[in-house]
């Protein structure tokens, strides 16, 4: 079936099998490998992308379901000049990643989280990323990274980025 999907602002028209998952379309057909496949069972959130602005798990959506829609992946997040997005900066400054496998999904989910709730509490952040698993960090520095981006987006000085050992 022929589908047209706008990915990171660029239109792609391709013929795909109906059973192809959106994450495979993104990674294999478009070669955008920043979106990861972790569990492949809708649990881990590594494959999170934005579909028409909503964070979704691309391992549980068919590529044909994205026909006529707009997809945003981690590759679109930094500026064209390489300037980091506040969330990327927050993860870097706060040691919000160790192995980095979950990070693209964490960031794509957090983009929508901060759009809906620009100044979330710690509890709201923890519920907000409850569909994303990290097996390295224990989440504390991920929460701090999102708090950092929230502060930066609101023009507030982010809290100290000294690593927290709890």
């Amino acid at each position: 079936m022929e589908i047209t999907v706008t990915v990171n602002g660029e239109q792609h028209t391709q013929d795909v099998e109906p059973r192809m998952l959106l994450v495979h379309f993104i990674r294999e057909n478009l070669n955008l490998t920043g979106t990861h496949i972790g569990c492949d069972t809708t649990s881990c959130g590594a494959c999170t992308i934005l579909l028409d602005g909503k964070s979704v798990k691309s391992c549980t959506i068919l590529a044909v379901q994205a026909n006529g829609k707009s997809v945003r992946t981690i590759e679109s997040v930094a500026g064209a000049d390489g300037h980091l997005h506040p969330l990327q900066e927050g993860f870097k400054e706060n040691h919000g990643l160790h192995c980095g496998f979950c990070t693209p999904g964490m960031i794509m989910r957090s983009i929508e989280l901060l759009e809906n709730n620009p100044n979330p509490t710690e509890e709201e952040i923890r519920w907000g990323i409850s569909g994303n698993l990290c097996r390295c960090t224990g989440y504390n520095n991920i929460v701090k990274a999102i708090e950092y981006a929230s502060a930066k987006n609101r023009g507030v000085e982010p809290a100290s980025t000294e690593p927290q050992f709890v």
Partner: protein
Amino acid sequence: MIAQSFQYEAPGTLAEAISMLHKYGEEAKVLSGGHSLIPMMKLRFANPECLIDINGIPGLAHIKEEGGVIKIGALTREAEIEHSDLLKKHFPIFADVTKLIADPQVRNRGTIGGNLAHGDAANDHPAVMLALNATIIATGSDGERSIPIDEFFHGFYMTELQFGEILTEIQIPVPPAGTGSAYHKLERKVGDYATAGVAIQLTLDSKGVCTAAGIGLTNVNPVPLRASRSEKALIGKPITDETIAEAAKYASEDCSPSADLRGSEEYKRAMVAVLVKRMIHKAVERISK
């Protein structure tokens, strides 16, 4: 994991979708949010020959109040239910239940219609709909049909929906003043199916006597279960420690949980009793507010 090959159709109208269901027969499945069906297809537990994707059909995603009835379109996403002011006003239970359904990304896709039409006693909305006395609207080639929620669930993955019918709307009576509702499920981790779940809606008169009670149980029975004896134990009486204990006891006796990784049968029955007590307290607390 990749599903078996299938044909994909994306009808633009309900009539078109229904005629496709007739054309492809029993080998067709309706694709709504897809967050139960696609995982099952990837695991090849479900192998439909044709998927009829109803996401592009207009007029199926709404939350509105008409003539004392709340109408929720089948394609309404869990995330929309979670944040609906109209639902918050009448039914605090929806904020309880949606927060416990999977996770934010899944709630951006999963729909209330799919959650019910899937016919799984482990899903959370069935118990809530029993407590709220909902009516299911199914649309087929002969038009719409109303199905009382008590007649909707037939068995594991089996519902009253007939061949060629699509669940299109859920209707819930707006409760009178003095009504409170609450839901909780015990889960091992975020997004897990319930070890046990309890949905309750209670109405009290000005003297504190219970005039209406709806109690539904999640994942402790082959089909979503109405705790009828528990409801009767409350109606016509003031809510006291004794009536609450009686309602809790009946619910734990009348369900039929199976032992699995989430716990033994005995443990699940005990949790049903605990949750019934807690949810009655929570619903009553909400009335007094």
